[in-house]
């Protein structure tokens, strides 16, 4: 050991200290080439990891799509909820007009429409009910009515109580039980949706961590040797971080693209007016592709990247303590 080389080394050491295990260009090249070699070498495990991430994420997407569509149906139903206000027979036209204005300014009311008995009958004609109503001579059907649409369906009972006290109101007709049931279903579906998605998210992290753990265990020796030769933890870690990131992003992008296309085709095919769903339900209440996927795409990709990195790094952590 001659003293001059020793001094040289010391100088170099000071100069380099910043870069070691860091993200200099030289290191980045190394990390990426390591990552690709490792993925190619462990083709099977890499594929398994991607598929694991993909299957977890496809379930997350599917449950989100189902929940959001159930909510869409419920919202659509709520939006179409009307209270039909039947007016006393002996009301004058002016009194009816007064009632109309009273309804307009009442709490929780969005929209009021006057329907004359003639119009009411006309609406019924052609419907299955028309003959029955006419036959039963139920004059209620031939009263003057107002159709009232509410801001907040959840305040249905308060609003109806309020309206029934107005002068000239004979009776109110609305699907009270159905609405309450609907509100309850809507609450439950939202809660179930949140629970299912969070449970699946946690579950996918666990599954992915374990899948990647197998890959990392098979490389335990490699990590050990790197540490013996003097690699910093970050030098060992970076290729695993990049690998986890790639696996996660790929595992998220594939099911995302697949469900995106599938959903689009399905909605186009069966839920549009004239389509199969339209024929069954009578109205399109499904969320449009553009209302779901562009919004969840970044979240899903970041989520995939996150669980990939988390799984990869957490499963190698204990091997670093050498």
């Amino acid at each position, binding site marked *: *050991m*001659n003293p001059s*080389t*020793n001094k040289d*080394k010391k100088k170099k*050491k000071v100069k*380099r200290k910043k*870069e*070691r*295990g860091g993200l*200099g260009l*030289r*290191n980045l090249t*190394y990390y990426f080439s390591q990552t690709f*070699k490792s993925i190619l*070498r462990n083709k099977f495990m890499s594929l398994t990891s991607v598929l694991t991430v993909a299957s977890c994420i496809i379930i997350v997407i599917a449950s989100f799509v189902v929940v959001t569509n159930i909510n869409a149906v419920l919202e659509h139903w709520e939006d179409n909820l009307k209270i039909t206000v039947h007016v006393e027979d002996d009301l004058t036209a002016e009194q009816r007009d007064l009632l109309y204005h009273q309804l307009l300014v009442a709490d929780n009311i969005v929209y009021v429409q006057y329907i004359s008995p003639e119009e009411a009958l006309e609406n019924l004609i052609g419907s299955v009910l028309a003959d029955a109503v006419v036959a039963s001579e139920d004059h209620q059907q031939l009263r003057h009515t107002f159709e009232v649409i509410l801001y907040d369906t959840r305040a249905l009972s308060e609003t109806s109580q309020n309206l029934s006290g107005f002068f000239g109101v004979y009776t109110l007709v609305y699907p009270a039980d159905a609405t309450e049931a609907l509100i309850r279903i809507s609450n439950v579906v939202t809660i179930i949706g949140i629970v299912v998605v969070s449970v699946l998210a946690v579950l996918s992290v666990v599954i992915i961590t374990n899948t990647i753990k197998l890959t990392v265990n098979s490389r335990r*020796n*490699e990590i*050990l*040797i*790197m*540490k*013996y*030769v*003097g*690699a*910093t*933890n970050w*030098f060992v870690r970076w290729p695993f971080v990049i690998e986890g990131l790639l696996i996660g992003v790929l595992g998220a992008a594939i099911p995302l693209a697949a469900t995106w296309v599938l959903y689009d085709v399905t909605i186009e095919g069966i839920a549009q007016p004239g389509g199969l769903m339209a024929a069954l339900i009578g109205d399109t209440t499904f969320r449009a592709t553009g209302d779901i996927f562009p919004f969840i795409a970044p979240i899903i990709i970041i989520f995939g990247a996150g669980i990939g990195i988390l799984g990869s790094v957490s499963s190698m952590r204990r091997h670093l303590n*050498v």
Partner: protein
Amino acid sequence: MIKIANATKIYENGSRGIQDVNLTIEKGEFVFVVGLSGSGKSTLIKILLKELDLSEGEIFINEENITLYGKNQIPYLRRKMGVVFQDFRLLPNKTVYENVAFAMQIADASSREIRRNVPTVLSMVGLQKKSKAYPNQLSGGEQQRCALARAIVNNPPILLCDEPTGNLDPDTAWDIMNLLDEINNRGTTVVMATHAWDIVDAMKKRVISMKNGFVVRDIERGGYNNESLD
């Protein structure tokens, strides 16, 4: 260069690795560490690498107290020390060239430095023709020469060897010993744990004998069994 003071390592299960070891090894020395199986030779090497922490005592390398080093400093300590093991410990998925280059990449060498130094070291250990081979395509002796090349490519002041000839036949073992001698002659301090009494006897270097974790003998230019080890 290396100073070990009152060093004791007791493993978690209570077995005694080394006990109250005091040693000073000067720059440029060649030191054999001998002793029966379980006498503490590997433990001594491991505490120098800081693979294990001491239970008691201190170790100084180049006057620096490495006992106080934190986890972050260990990699930099190890770059000052080449290591060679009985079982070679090469990366199986890298070629001979890549295994050696790897030690330089870790130390953040430029690719120009790598292209210059790796072939030099490989030809020094006689592996220039095998640089594209993978470890499983090499004989034991060749694998150990590759490990040796990796250990010295960054020009470490200290080279630690734990039974480097343990898996090799006598002729191959002597090839390795000649390389170690050459490395030592260039100024590198070499510490080698071994059972190979014939090598120790022939080399006439300093011999530290261990028994039950204690240093029981320390002889300049000694042999494996200068006196009985009782």
